[in-house]
């Protein structure tokens, strides 16, 4: 036997095993179980790093020698094998081999399925105790999303041989194919095809044809191309603070999951008020700015405070069916009440007592549109009368102006008259404006003074303020006085916890996790 080759020995072992199994002389141990795993289960044509083949045996007899023959049949039908012997260290053991490096004549040079069979030759004989298979392709994956690269590898061509690569979909060549590339000095072919967002989705076929090499199994394989998703980098709000009636302008850029900017399509923005009222705002791609853009005019009746804008999940659709995002960053902006612009004019010159001073006021919101709903009052102040006579103005939609009149009385003096117009609405939007002009009337002037009342009111307010201040200061001091905490006692209490076994265990586990992440 000593002069027999390794191949012959293996053949004899298989024959003996088959014979024993056929006549049922030595049954396999009933409780013994075998599990075969291949990692990875799919790979590309390449001899290195290969595939890890693991056989795990449970229910074994401790101290008993075990021997196995592993046989791999490649897509061309060629076979390669490896043997492993071990003495069971306990009831369970496992061993690993690398395919192809640990197998005689092993290789990964064909596309297709590689079948692995494990036969046991010691202590009992069985032609097959475990089996499995390995899938080999040209591409690194069998399914891709658009915008990701398709990485292609092939083996067993001649050194520096020029090969033709075809990728087809529905019998039509993909853009830029066929491609011609040279194998490296070892006969390996490497190629990467970056898929674009607009490629048709579905099954594609990749084929490699050698210039001189004809392989026993043709290098041809299909893969699936699917839609891709998009992500949003960040949303920009043109102004961080806006008044009601102004238009908030948003922009953002989007990227495909595999990389590259999204350059078409539309999306929906969710603009949320502080009370969570949501407005859906359409955004469209602007080729000039290369960003998605949207605008939303903030209504005069909306809430003040911090607003949020974000892209609604999965609302972005490009022109090719790709969509996303799963989630979106948000942008905050502040909304404040509208400051109304008030322009006005009134009748000037000579006014006969009993006639009216007509007042016209043009009131606009910050975006320049006419303010048409609210309360608008004019205060007409002849000389020496700082608190003017109030006149309510009404909106004249034909003129888009607020109008009203003041009847000149005998008490109104001639001179420079000041007219002030104040506008407001229930939502806190407000504004005022004033103008003055010389008005000539004949009337006596009488002045009263409320100065004493004003002083009394002011004094009372100051005194009340001081009392409240003293009260609050005392409360604050009370809180601060009671909140003296002894850090030493805190530390001692914490130490009791830190000395517990469970705390130590948790701390060690955290450190292990950190080390794991670090390495």
């Amino acid at each position, binding site marked *: 036997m000593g002069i027999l080759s390794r191949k012959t020995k293996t053949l004899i072992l298989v024959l003996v095993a088959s014979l024993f199994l056929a006549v049922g002389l030595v049954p396999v141990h009933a409780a013994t179980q075998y599990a075969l795993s291949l990692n990875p289960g799919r790979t590309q044509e390449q001899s290195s790093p290969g595939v890890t083949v693991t056989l795990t045996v449970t229910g074994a007899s401790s101290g008993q020698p075990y021997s196995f023959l592993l046989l791999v049949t490649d897509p061309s039908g060629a076979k390669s094998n490896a043997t492993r012997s071990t003495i069971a260290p306990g009831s369970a053991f496992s061993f690993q081999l690398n395919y192809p490096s640990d197998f005689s004549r092993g290789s990964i040079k064909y596309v297709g399925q590689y079948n692995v069979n494990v036969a046991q030759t010691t202590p009992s004989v069985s032609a097959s105790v475990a089996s499995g298979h390995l899938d080999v392709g040209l591409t690194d994956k069998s399914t891709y999303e658009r915008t990701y690269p398709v990485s292609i590898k092939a083996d067993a061509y001649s050194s520096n041989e020029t090969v033709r690569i075809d990728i087809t979909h529905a019998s039509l060549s993909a853009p830029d194919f066929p491609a011609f590339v040279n194998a490296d000095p070892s006969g390996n072919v490497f190629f990467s095809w970056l898929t674009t967002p607009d490629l048709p989705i579905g099954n594609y076929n990749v084929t490699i044809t050698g210039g001189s090499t004809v392989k026993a199994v043709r290098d041809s394989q299909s893969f699936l191309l699917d839609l891709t998703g998009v992500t949003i980098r960040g949303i920009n709000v043109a102004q961080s603070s806006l008044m009601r009636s102004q238009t908030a302008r948003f922009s953002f850029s989007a990227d495909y999951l595999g990389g590259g900017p999204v350059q078409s399509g539309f999306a929906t923005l969710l603009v949320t008020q502080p009370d969570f009222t949501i407005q859906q705002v359409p955004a469209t791609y602007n080729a000039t700015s290369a960003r998605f853009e949207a605008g939303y005019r903030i209504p005069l009746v909306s809430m003040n405070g911090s607003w949020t804008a974000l892209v609604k999940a999965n609302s972005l659709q490009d022109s090719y069916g790709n969509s996303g995002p799963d989630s979106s960053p948000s942008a905050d902006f502040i909304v404040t009440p509208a400051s109304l612009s008030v322009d006005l004019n009134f009748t000037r010159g000579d006014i006969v007592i009993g006639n009216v001073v007509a007042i016209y006021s043009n009131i606009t919101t910050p975006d320049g549109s006419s303010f048409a709903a609210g309360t608008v009052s004019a205060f007409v102040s002849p000389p020496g009368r700082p608190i003017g006579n109030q006149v309510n103005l009404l909106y004249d939609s034909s003129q888009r102006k607020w109008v009203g009149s003041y009847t000149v009385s005998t008490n109104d003096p001639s001179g420079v008259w000041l007219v002030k117009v104040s506008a407001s609405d229930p939502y806190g939007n407000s504004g005022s404006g004033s103008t003055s002009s010389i008005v000539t009337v004949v009337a006596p002037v009488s002045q009263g003074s409320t100065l004493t009342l004003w002083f009394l009111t002011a004094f009372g307010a100051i005194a009340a303020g001081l009392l409240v201040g003293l009260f609050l200061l005392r409360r604050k001091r009370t809180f601060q006085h009671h*909140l003296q905490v002894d*850090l030493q006692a805190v530390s001692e209490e*914490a130490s009791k916890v830190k000395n517990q076994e469970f705390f130590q265990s948790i701390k060690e586990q955290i450190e292990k996790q950190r080390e794991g992440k670090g390495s």
Partner: protein
Amino acid sequence: MVRTITVHSFKGGTGKSTITANLATALAARGRRVGVMDMDLEGPGLHVIFNITPEEVKHTLNDVLLDAVSPDEAVIPMNGRLGLEAGSLYFSPASVRVGEMLRTLRTGFELESFSRAIAKLGTSFKLDYVMIDTHPGIENDTLLVMGVCDHLVIVSRIDQQDIFGTGVVVDIARTLEKPAHLVVNMVPKGLKASDASKLVKGIGHHFKVDVAGWLPFSDAVQSSLSKSVFILTNPRDAVASRFQDLAKQLESYN
């Protein structure tokens, strides 16, 4: 990658569950994908705030930990229930059996098992945040929840014992090298906002802990009886605004 935020307090009645529910909802309203986990095994309350009956709870985190069910089966989607259009909110109810299971786990693997379950939830639902509500005090399960978090939010009232306990929790978090952030809740109404801010900053300075913010005592919050998410039922209340500010603060943590 999912960020885990544990909300904890030394004493009970600090409003921890209310804060957890409102912050999680505010984050979701800001477009985030948020999972909320009730680990207050002794007094779970989030299901009441989220208006979920016990009959609706088919599976819990315990089943995920045991690989008995997929994460999809152990969480309750909340967007439809709460009327949230933006973001996503998922709720994982408490299970009394979680405590039992953690106790039976072999010492030395609790953290890994729990981290794996959270990661599984995070991956399944593409979560940005997992917020965990704990029960008050310092027990083994609360130490575990502190151990898995990326950030620890400590809730305290202005109360001598509570502040003392907060100091203890801060000390423990520091030993575990977990970033801690203080939220002082139910600040007495008599204090002016500026004085309250100074007071809370003083507490933070005393314990050398970051101050995330503070919330005033609110009759409106109290009268809601923890039966709803306050920021949704009282969006215009000043406290709702403070919850939103706190949510923004959470987003700023790495």
